[in-house]
């Protein structure tokens, strides 16, 4: 973490705020794992979370691709949007 001079408008407080905002974005299970973490631990957990999200996108892309193989040409997209709105 670079410490800036007094001319910087970014305070430690703001950084702490951003760090706790990040922490609140982690899923419950990960938050519990790190507890009252240091910023460093939180960043590591955030990296791990992002990697798992990327893996999820990979995995879901594979599954969608497989589903698409069985798809017919004129599929109703409206159904999907409707069900998404309901969820």
């Amino acid at each position, binding site marked *: 973490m670079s410490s800036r001079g007094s001319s910087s408008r970014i305070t430690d407080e703001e950084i702490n705020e*951003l760090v706790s905002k990040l922490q609140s*974005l982690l899923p419950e299970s990960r938050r519990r794992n790190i507890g009252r973490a240091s910023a460093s631990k939180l960043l590591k957990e955030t990296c791990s979370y*992002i990697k798992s999200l990327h893996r999820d996108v*990979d995995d879901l892309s594979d599954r969608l691709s497989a589903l698409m193989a069985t798809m017919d040409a004129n599929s109703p997209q409206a159904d*999907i*949007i409707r069900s*998404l709105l309901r969820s």
Partner: protein
Amino acid sequence: MKSSTRNPNPNPDTPRFGPSKLMVAFRFLRALTLVHRTAPNSSNAARSRRIQRAAFASMAYSAGPRRAWSRALLWRLHFHRARRLCAGRSRAAGVPRRPSTTRSPADELRRLVPGGTGMDYCSLLEETADYIRCLSEQVKLMQSVVDSGGPRGR
């Protein structure tokens, strides 16, 4: 009818400043339709890569140019697309996967968040928060498409 002049976002669940879930869903489904229509006989792997690109593209387009991560993603997608068209090679333009060596956690994060390299710590935290929000929404969206039985609907 609710007046939505102040809040262009009809979905109350999304954060104030963020792409509406519906908009992302619409873009993604449209991209899926395109993938199916233009390459119905391609291999699963190739189609999967296209879907993955569509996922990141719809995320990035919906977030627009207001975010460094979305700008970086859009640039990356266009760059790789140009390379593919010129070189005729097929490459996944998703997020590059590199093995993590001994780097500081902040630097590791910089490599994971698009546009992160060279970013100052504060901006990095902000961009990461927004990126995580949009990325997790994208995952939920894809999951619900899979759950609804896929693009073939009911």
